[in-house]
């Protein structure tokens, strides 16, 4: 299959390893990976802040970038939800509404694509670690992803997954919310981190790096040794 990668801006800038992990996995499975280089940001910061015309201007670049894509796979649940759920809303009544709908249909979040489209489970990964999984809200509630990452992780040799009590509770990131209401965002993050620490895990995994930026940011500030990794990094850990 010809798979076009959707690498959101902050993954590109701060978490390239999540994207690289995804490339390794998809190529190992024998697919041709394409990266349309004109992509930048999905426009979510402007969209969530109420600046829809500005968000649309950015989103149009994405429509162009993926116009000829056969299938689009994104490495972030949140930005994936932007393309899949919110683009049709953002372009409702707009001349490019049909293009937005077409992109929404052919876009998939990474773990959901592996499990539900490619029907993959065991990727041959090995990673001896005690880990817990954080469900990003957009992935969980906009895209309905819950069992897919756990299914993939269940095949990782040596990885022990310990569920935290508040796995589905928001980490408090929320994009611009995190800096508009830093006090609330941080309090939510503290609750999340306490739940992570309770499990005794050494690693927190998620399919959303934006949540991990919040979680790791608080854990680091608290001086806790727990590390965080994107699911794609974990699954490609032992791959060359």
């Amino acid at each position, binding site marked *: 299959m010809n798979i076009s990668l959707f690498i959101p801006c902050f993954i590109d800038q*701060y978490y390239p390893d999540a994207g690289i992990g995804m490339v390794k996995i998809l190529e190992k499975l024998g697919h041709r990976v394409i990266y349309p*280089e*004109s992509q930048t940001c999905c426009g979510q910061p402007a969209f969530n802040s109420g600046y829809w015309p500005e968000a649309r201007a950015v989103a149009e670049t994405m429509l162009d970038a993926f116009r000829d894509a056969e299938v689009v796979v994104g490495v972030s649940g949140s930005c994936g939800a932007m393309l899949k759920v919110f683009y049709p809303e953002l372009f409702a009544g707009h001349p490019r509404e049909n293009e937005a709908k077409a992109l929404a249909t052919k876009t998939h979040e990474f773990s959901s694509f592996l499990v539900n489209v490619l029907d993959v489970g065991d990727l041959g990964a090995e990673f001896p670690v005690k880990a817990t999984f954080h469900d990003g809200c957009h992935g969980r509630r*906009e895209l309905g992803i819950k069992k897919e990452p756990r299914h993939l992780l269940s095949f990782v040799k040596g990885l022990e997954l310990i569920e935290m009590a508040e796995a589905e509770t928001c980490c408090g990131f929320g994009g611009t919310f995190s800096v508009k209401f830093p006090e609330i965002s941080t*309090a939510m*993050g503290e609750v999340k981190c306490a739940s992570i620490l309770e499990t005794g895990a050494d690693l927190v995994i998620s399919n959303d790096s934006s949540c991990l930026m919040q979680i790791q940011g608080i854990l680091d500030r608290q001086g806790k040794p727990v590390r965080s990794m994107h699911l794609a990094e974990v699954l490609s850990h032992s791959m060359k």
Partner: protein
Amino acid sequence: MSTPEARQFHQDAERLTHDLGHRSLIQKALGGYYKKRDEQRDKFSDWQAARSAASAIKFEAVNHLDKYLVEFAEKLEARGTKVFWASNGAEASEYIASVAANAKARKIIKSKTMTGEEIHLGPALEKRGLEVVESDLGEFIVQLREEAPYHIVFPSMHLSRGQINEVFQKKLHSPRADTPEELTMIARDHMRLKYCEADMGISGANFAVAETGHISITENEGNARLSTALPKVVVTLLGIEKIVPKLEDLALLLPMLATSGAGQAMTGYNTLIGGPRQPGESDGPTEYHVVLMDNNRTTLLANAEQRDALHCIRCGACLNVCPIFKNVGGHSYGTTYQCPIGSVITPHLRGLQSWKHLSFASSLCGASTETCPVKIDLHHHLLQNRRNAIAGKRVWWEKPIFQGFAWFMNQPALYRLAAPMLRLADPVIHAIRGKAFDPARLWTGTRDLPRAPKQSFKEYWKNRHASR
């Protein structure tokens, strides 16, 4: 400029998020709720199907409000109830005060009504020299403390036993009490007399049945039943959205409200009021009034995108799962209806520009939408409120930021320079993090930032193809 309402929210939220005692009190209270709620949900053969059915009932009612309201009023009037249509809170308060004046009432016993809170009915009547006593235990406690209900279902959930004992000792001159039972007995002793003395009762409503003209009230203390049965004159105040088409609709909605609201199969007392005392009956009020209030609900009704917010049955389930609520508490919102439903509807009820900050004070996690028993699309409505607020009035300092953002993200060549720039700036970013002059302090004040990686994904991709 931010509004006074927004400034108050920021200040209170800042204070409450640092109050770890408050956080653990609320977490503990809700921990018990989650367990009971899940047990009750599991007793439904299909909770999701029940949600769809409940949502369909409210959709039908809200989208044919004109028909059902008239049907409801006619049925009530046929049995001697006086129905008053109030456009706003002032009209509703004025009418209820006039009922009291005509009946020469001096003492009023009131059961819980959020609609009454919405229009500040209690204080409005007290201003006219009437004694108003709240008969719901939680409401009674917050009334003694002279504060607003903290939560639409659990008005005093923010208070410890010690704080309740304190206010009872101070205001009721009661002896020290340590157990919930002792505290309840103190309130009950005080209240019994008030029921007997009251010459007027006021209640709210959970549902209004159009088919039969019945008010449905559901409660756990029996206080609403007493407040509407003992006094000679009784008034029920409700918002026009409380309508359901048929009596049988209650068979689904009452258990769903009990499950979502308090984790109960059914609430303790379920009362149907069909009118005043009928000929041949020996008890019940001789005069019964129903006040149907709009108070900007029709503004929401006219909004096709968000009309489903009128489905709300005020169960409070969305508050209970909201991570914002759990950290900032109910009072920070400064509204009768707290987030998430409050953040959705308050801008419609009280003005978008004054209350838009509540729609921004959300991580859009969607937990509320997932739990809502009548499937209100809560977090997407917050997004729509944000869009409408900005379309109406752009924030002067945000406007250039987002215009710049849109311009920058559409310059792939320029964007490619971001990664080397970030690497260059990285040591500085980390040296000044959290300091007073750090431009990223809103993030770095409480959280670390990741270090810039050796290469961006774009650089990785370019290098990979160059080396092949």
